[in-house]
């Protein structure tokens, strides 16, 4: 595929790696913010190819991993209502709630549909006027416009049976929270290319300046990631702290203004709980009251008591880059992809799952 395959060239990758090795003179810790980048690092075996002096730290950029336990529980509760069709992206289905995950709810008979797009959910709502169709709208800034658009479509079609259960998280406040942590030892960031596609880069300049960290907006193919690492390393070695755009073929400085408009039409900013991390101010979206009819939280008023996270799970520290998964006492023992104790063990983007697969741990 054009604009993808070219960025997987092994020869050029080798040259990037050589250049990184040549450039590095001291140890650096670089956080790739986005789970998609983690996935690329793992799938392509990049971590082991990097010089030992470059340590990649896997950030909180996996919406699946940071969706609060309580929202998962609510989604499960709704899905089990006889009258509700719950629609979701596929990767949410294995995320553990306090008692079960959505796959298990499905096994109990819940009508749960895996969709490629929230716009499909609107179509399902049209086709089933006698059912309540709820889309489990998780995601970062990248997905927020599409989820907003589904509400706009449903509103235009005057559907009374469509709503979204949101758990939207925003990247810049999370980066700030990570840096603010006392124990933080991150020298530079690969920012999430697709988030910036929507929001642009403007939010990163003050961050970079204030905290004196290089931030490189980076894509997802191996050459993208390698170039992004090289750009961070070059800044670090040169003692610079700027925002650079590795992913300029996709990301414009200003982002996508139309998409931003849609976000602001439907959503407003709020404090948000990040699973494993806790509340981060102004780090999430909720549906504006004007569109309250499309807000599953308002519509169904589900009260589900907050359940405690598994106390052994140190996913918060892992997502802040303070610990590596194998430093978790449960890693590979009680916690495995078949039985995840925390969300980072769920998707192949989660740091724990990535390490689990990468390290080749095998179940008896």
């Amino acid at each position: 595929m054009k604009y993808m395959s070219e960025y997987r060239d092994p020869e050029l990758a080798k040259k990037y790696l050589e250049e990184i090795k040549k450039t590095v003179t001291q140890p650096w810790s670089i956080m790739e913010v986005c789970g998609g980048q983690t996935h690329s690092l793992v799938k392509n075996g990049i971590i082991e190819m990097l010089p030992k002096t470059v340590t990649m730290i896997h950030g909180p950029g996996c919406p699946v991993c940071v969706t609060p336990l309580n929202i998962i529980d609510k989604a499960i509760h709704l899905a089990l209502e006889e009258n509700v069709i719950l629609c979701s992206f596929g990767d949410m289905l294995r995320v553990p709630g306090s008692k079960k995950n959505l796959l298990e709810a499905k096994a109990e008979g819940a009508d749960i549909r895996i969709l490629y797009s929230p716009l499909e959910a609107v179509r399902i709502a049209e086709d089933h006027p006698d059912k309540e169709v709820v889309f489990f709208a998780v995601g970062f800034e990248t997905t927020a416009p599409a989820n907003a658009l589904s509400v706009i479509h449903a509103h235009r079609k005057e559907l009374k049976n469509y709503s979204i259960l949101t758990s939207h998280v925003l990247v810049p406040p999370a980066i700030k929270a990570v840096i603010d942590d006392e124990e933080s030892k991150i020298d530079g960031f690969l920012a999430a290319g697709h988030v910036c596609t929507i929001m642009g880069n403007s939010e990163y300049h003050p961050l970079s300046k204030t905290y004196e960290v290089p931030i490189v907006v980076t894509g997802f193919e191996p050459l993208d990631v390698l170039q992004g690492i090289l750009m961070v390393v070059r800044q670090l070695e040169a003692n610079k702290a700027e925002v650079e755009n590795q992913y300029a073929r996709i990301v414009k400085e200003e982002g996508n203004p139309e998409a931003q408009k849609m976000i602001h039409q439907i959503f407003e900013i709020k404090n948000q709980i990040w699973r494993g991390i806790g509340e981060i101010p102004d780090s999430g979206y909720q549906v504006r009251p004007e569109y309250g009819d499309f807000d599953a939280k308002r519509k169904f008023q589900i009260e589900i008591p907050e359940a405690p996270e598994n106390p052994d799970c140190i996913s918060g520290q892992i997502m802040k880059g303070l610990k590596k998964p194998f430093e978790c006492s449960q890693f590979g023992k009680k916690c495995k992809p078949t039985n995840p104790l925390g969300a980072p063990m769920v998707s192949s983007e989660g740091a724990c799952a990535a390490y689990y697969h990468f390290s080749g741990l095998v179940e008896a």
Partner: protein
Amino acid sequence: MQLQCPMPKLDFDVITLGHGSGGVLTNKLLDSGVFDVLSNPILDERHDGAIFQLEGKMAFSTDSFLVSPIFFPGGNIGELAVNGTVNDLAMCGAIPKYLSLSFIIEEGLKVSEFWEILIAIKGACEEAGVHVVTGDTKVVEKGKGDKIFINTSGVGSIHSKANISAKNIKAGDKIIVSGNIASHGMAIMSVREGLEFDSEILSDTINLNHTISSLLDSFGEHIHLLTDPTRGGIATVLKETAQSINLGIDMAQRDLPIDNQVASACELLGLDPIYVANEGLFIAFVDASIADDFLEALHKDENGANAKIIGTVTEEHPKQVIMESAIGGKRVVSMLPGEQLPRIC
């Protein structure tokens, strides 16, 4: 492969519980001519079982087939069910001979759909040179099945030169995949509600027995293991094999033959093709000494045009499958906890 047989005239359009009750309707269905397409002297006896003779060692295999939708690009559940068991027998080094055929039909299935499935079964049997000799038809209430499930079991005589067993695998053995991977799974995905896309991707369902038989003619004992990477894809079969032989497997992503559209569809949905199901594909572990000849022979076969050597058995990293990535990095290939789900992340 589908013959244009006209469907017998029936006074019912859908299959109902009565057709599975054992009474008049069951007999009506059996006598309707619908099953005549499968006719052969052994089946026509219509006793509680079939009676025949097989010489020498034999293989026996079973599989139940459930696929949604039952009609998909490149085939339907009928040929899938025949090819699946034919191929499992071939993987044992057997020449498939006789099949049993058992339907679990959800009431409401259109007879015309059932007919189309039967025609596909007939075609697949003819292709493979096997006969359905015994069968069963059950009907379940609406909502207690999914249109139709098919079980086929089969028996065949072990090829005189075959000695297929994971125990024969040794370090240095070459691993050959017979064609493009992930086609079946992505053909199904392309018609799954909520995920569908337009493509020319077809399921690779096909019978492999003739291909295997001629390879056994030529390479006999040098073929150490044959296995078809269906559910779980090639990754799962390779990992299972590595675990069972207590040896490692080295492979490289660039060696994996895959159709462009299939690869694109995997990118679209965030799926890894090494975990996607195949139906007309096999993996052979062969002695390194014959690997190139084997590949050459396979390239000449209609089912092996895209065959490739994808890996080597190694004493290093026992039980582990290590894949070199597109850019030359290394990645451990493990099994997935369950079915691969489309990702947004």
